[in-house]
């Protein structure tokens, strides 16, 4: 039994905007898989479909998403039993999706809602054991001292780690991370990826993480699934993803995926559209200021 199995998944937005087109794959227990692709390639849609947050196309045939042997959705309808499997799926979002005005601890306690009795949830009555578990989760991701602060007072990286703590308290067996590091600085990105890696290795939690920077995939995930225009174009070891191979897969848009990677500068050998302004600005600066800039970007 696979941890996640996706069959013939198609999702259309509006009339003809195919976000995903006939995607299938299986992910085994305890794997850590990267999902790469340029923006608009369908990564987020795929993760939200697996989490059962949105529905696949109605008449897309026998399309089906199973997580841990339970059906999340099939034939374009979120399964009735999906609410039972949902606590087993932790989701981590690009924008963290914490409730700003609640304390960090309360945000993490939310992770228990899927498991405790309905009425206890309504009144926010949590046991001492549950609170301690939340504190442990916060300690694990390294932000226990912030427990009493409002979530909004945390830095982006800390908020993302709080979101991971919430998923840990949820005791999910599968963790889906949708661009978890896209709005973080490099140092925070590294901490978040390392936290994900640790829980994958120590707890055997299956992790699927969508990224748009291949170097993170290569460094942290043994396996990568690559999407382009809603279709799976590669599924295999991340180590095979050399800049040359990426260029083969994505053509000129491969540059978007290897931005920020040290190897890309020499490897891709192409003009980088999104960085043009930056480059121009750098060229326009007086030479004396360049070292300062280098320090700032390092």
């Amino acid at each position, binding site marked *: 039994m696979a941890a996640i199995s996706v069959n013939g998944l198609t999702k259309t937005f509006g009339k003809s905007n195919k976000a995903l087109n006939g995607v299938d794959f299986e992910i085994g227990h305890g794997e850590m898989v990267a999902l790469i692709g340029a923006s608009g390639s369908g990564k987020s849609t795929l993760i939200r479909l697996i989490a059962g947050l949105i529905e696949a196309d109605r008449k897309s045939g026998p399309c089906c998403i199973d997580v841990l042997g339970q059906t999340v959705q099939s034939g374009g309808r979120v399964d009735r039993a999906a609410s039972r499997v949902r606590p087993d799926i932790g*989701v981590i979002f690009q924008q*963290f*999706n914490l*409730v*700003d005005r609640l304390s960090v601890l*309360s945000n993490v306690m939310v992770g228990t809602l899927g498991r405790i009795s*309905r009425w206890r949830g*309504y009144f*926010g009555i949590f046991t001492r054991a549950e609170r301690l578990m939340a504190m442990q989760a916060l300690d694990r991701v390294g932000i226990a001292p912030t427990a009493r602060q409002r979530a909004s007072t945390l830095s982006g990286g800390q908020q993302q780690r709080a979101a991971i703590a*919430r998923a840990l308290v949820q005791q999910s067996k599968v963790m889906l991370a949708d661009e978890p590091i896209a709005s973080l600085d490099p140092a925070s990105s590294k901490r978040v990826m390392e936290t994900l890696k640790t829980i994958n290795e120590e707890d055997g939690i299956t992790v699927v993480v969508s990224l748009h920077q291949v170097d993170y995939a290569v460094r942290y995930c043994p396996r990568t699934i690559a999407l382009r225009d809603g279709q799976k174009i590669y599924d295999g070891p991340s180590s095979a993803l050399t800049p040359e191979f990426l260029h083969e897969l994505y053509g000129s848009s491969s540059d978007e995926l290897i931005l920020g990677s040290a190897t890309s500068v020499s490897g891709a050998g192409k003009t980088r559209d999104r960085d043009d302004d930056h480059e121009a600005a750098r060229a326009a600066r007086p030479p004396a200021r360049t070292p300062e800039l280098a320090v700032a970007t390092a």
Partner: protein
Amino acid sequence: MTQLAAHPRTVELPKSDVKRTTGKLVMWALVAIALMLSWEGADMRPMALYNDAANMASFIDGFFPPDFYDWPTVAREMVITLQIAIWGTALSILCSIPFGILSSENMVPWWVWQPVRRLMDAFRAINEIVFAMLFVVAVGLGPFAGVLALWIHTTGVLAKLFSEAVEAIDPHPVEGIKSTGADKIQQIIFGVIPQVMPLWISYSLYRFESNVRSATVLGIVGAGGIGMILWEQIRGFNYAGTAATMIVIVVSVTLIDIVSQRLRKMVT
């Protein structure tokens, strides 16, 4: 000649936009037409102010000096007025929470928010005084009729304001809570309410202020409070007493407004 020294070129003014200018003219013309058409119906007789000036002077003269002959009764009734406002507002806040959520487009399907909103429109469309008259018949003379009247009308107002706050929330945190397996009500309690709380508190305080003002006239139709005294004094041509009662109302309402405004600033 005014010219920026360092800027060598002369720059022409941008061409005036004909479309916008005519648009403005049409708008002002419409306002003028509306005012003219309403002149007759509103029985506008500005000369009456001048012709009856002597009458008015003696009328106003009757108000001075204000006569606080029965101040303990006036004070007691003012307190009752406040108490009517407190209960009317409290009950309507309680009802506006579910009604507000049930009339938010982003929380429930259209076949729920449509009828709930129309019901709230009806609550809001009818003035407190009208409800007060009805409730006086239903539950008898006295402050309870006033509480019920404020309750219904304010629920209509607050539910609309509450739902506007709910419709403006950030959906991401709610999605985050949904993803943990929380049910719809838990998503609202943990994801929606914390986001709208400051606005809800602010709106509620504001409605409390308005309700104190509204409660001062409920007594006129027998629904309790200081309005009753006011009505009796005016009918008895006791203008000195009326002036005293009005001063009590002005001072209390102003105090409440100031305190409530302070509180509202604190929460938002």
